[in-house]
């Protein structure tokens, strides 16, 4: 399939966290694109930098974060160079975000209706129209009896319902890009399936692009068009979802598959466990970032840092020397 025109292009993004024990290099040379109208999944173990990456897409990073290099091109603008004002215009308008924990993501002392009204503050519509828009969106995400629920507070809703509320809020302004950071991780498997199906329907209705973060391959397989696999702050493999699932080319992706049957219906709620630990990102080791845990590591992996090599079709690349023509030849 030919790549659609990109909506968002992340190039060479590197981000450090200032910590008491030194700089933590949480993202290093991250590169990927989100085509218009497509769903891109970001997978990796916990601590791989998925949230950090997702949040930096709208420059919503913690105070100790320092974006040291790269560009994030969104609709012709570099997010990383925008002024605060322009950035605020994009947030919640062109790019929206859904957070991991629906129990804490909503303002606990304000009604749902008021919160949905407030995020439309830029719109010139009348209050009645804003209210109608809110009700309509609540109905779309499956909140029963939406009109009467506007006066309810977040704690009146269950976790699954709250995540629906968050999704409704995120899509209310019809953004071009929805960033969802593990929106189903805090929910049980049945709810997860419901939310995923709903997201899929909404996405095809509204035609927006989605960046979907998950540590669960099954969820990604179900929902996404493209996959970005992250390990310890690097993109180690990326490509169309079918490619990745049929021919995982990076040993890390392969290990993820071995730990995770990849079927969403099954009760595999624990994180995938691959033997070994993530490297210390304060002193990033030289060579391949995965070498300490890689069953196929060899001499060159110690010395050199692999670049992305093409695996199968053009769009499928992996940072592993096993794909290098020279190695294959040898």
């Amino acid at each position, binding site marked *: 399939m030919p790549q659609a025109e990109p909506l968002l292009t992340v190039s060479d993004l590197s981000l450090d966290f200032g910590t008491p024990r030194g700089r933590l290099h949480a993202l290093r040379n991250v590169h990927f694109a989100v085509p218009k109208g497509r769903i891109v999944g970001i997978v990796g173990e916990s601590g791989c930098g998925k949230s950090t990456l997702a949040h930096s897409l*709208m420059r919503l990073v913690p105070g100790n974060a320092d974006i040291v290099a790269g560009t994030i091109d969104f609709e012709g603008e570099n997010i990383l160079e925008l002024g605060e004002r322009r950035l*605020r215009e994009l*947030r919640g308008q062109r790019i*929206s975000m859904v*957070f991991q924990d629906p129990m804490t993501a909503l303002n606990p*002392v304000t009604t749902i209706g008021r919160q949905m009204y407030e995020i439309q503050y830029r719109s010139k519509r009348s209050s009645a129209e804003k209210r109608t828009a809110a009700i309509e969106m609540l109905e779309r995400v499956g909140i029963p009896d939406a009109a009467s629920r506007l006066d309810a507070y977040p704690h009146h809703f269950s976790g699954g319902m709250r995540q629906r509320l968050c999704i409704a809020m995120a899509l209310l302004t019809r953004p071009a890009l929805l960033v969802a950071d593990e929106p189903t991780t805090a929910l049980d498997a049945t709810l997860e399936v419901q939310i995923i199906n709903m997201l899929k329907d909404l996405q095809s209705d509204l035609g927006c692009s989605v960046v979907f973060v998950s540590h669960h391959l099954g969820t990604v397989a179900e929902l996404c068009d493209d996959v970005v696999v992250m390990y310890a702050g690097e993109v180690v493999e990326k490509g169309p979802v079918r490619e990745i699932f049929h021919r995982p080319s990076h040993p890390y992706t392969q290990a993820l598959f071995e730990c995770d049957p990849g079927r969403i219906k099954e009760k595999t709620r624990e994180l995938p466990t691959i033997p070994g630990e993530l490297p210390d990102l304060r002193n990033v080791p030289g060579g391949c970032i995965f070498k300490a845990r890689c069953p196929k590591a060899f001499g060159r992996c110690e010395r050199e840092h692999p670049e992305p090599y093409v695996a199968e079709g053009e769009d499928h690349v992996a940072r592993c020397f096993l794909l290098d023509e020279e190695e294959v030849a040898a």
Partner: protein
Amino acid sequence: MLFYFIRRLGLSVIVVVLAVTILNVMLHLVPGDPAVMILGPRATPELIAKTREAMGLDRSFPMQMAIFFGNVLRGDLGRDVFTDRSVTTIVMEQLPYTLMLITASIAWAAALGIPLGCYSALHRNTWLDKITGVLSVSTISIPSFVMALYALLAFAVGLKWFPAVGAGEGFADSFHHLVLPAFAVGISWVGYLARIVRASMLEVLGETHVRMARAFGLRERKIVVAYALRIAVLPAVTLIGAGVAYLLSAAVFAEVIFARPGIGALIVKAVDSRNYPIVLGCVLVTTGIIVVATLISDLVNAWLDPRVRENL
């Protein structure tokens, strides 16, 4: 809601009865006969006996208490031993001065402490934050009567900016007289409130819903006030409500030092002269103030937070 009020009321009655009973026991343990105190050392035994009877001291202790509470229910706190004026009238005359002092102290402490705490949280580790931190801790540790004495010496005796004694007459003059005592009583609360608000503000600002508000591009001022501060002041409100008891004791010192009328001054004089009915009346009223203060802080919290409201 109704249940909340019934519970609060029941609790208040218990607190008042306990306070007054304990006080009565204590007063009876103090050496010296009140009748002798009033009549002076040269009184005849007959006269003493008669006075004791008039004061009800000849009856058993539980009987005295029963009569006292019976009268309280009718709004009668007894009569001043010396002037025979109604205690209710005397206490009510003094009450406004103390209420004014406490309200003024809370008002200025909150008006300064809450924004300072908020600012400190938003500008962590800036010089103003650090100065507030040091000042808070030092004002918290200085007893309020020491503060009152220094304030009196510096601003009334030394600089002569404010009157040293009394409560003044008329609005402007009363206000002028109120400044120094309110300063002395409220100053440690500025620090308290600033620290509390700073801590809870930092906590709330780190919460996901504030991040979410940012992700929606809401205005920073809106986020700080409506999304963070509104939640972060809850513990401060509770603290003020619970702290009124401490404020009252600080007010006693301030009233004595600044020679202001008020419940504190009244109570000190009455204890000194064994004027039991006045002492009991004052205790009753101050306990009432504490109960009402807790009630108000509960209601303010309920107004700010629907979760509290629903649990009332």
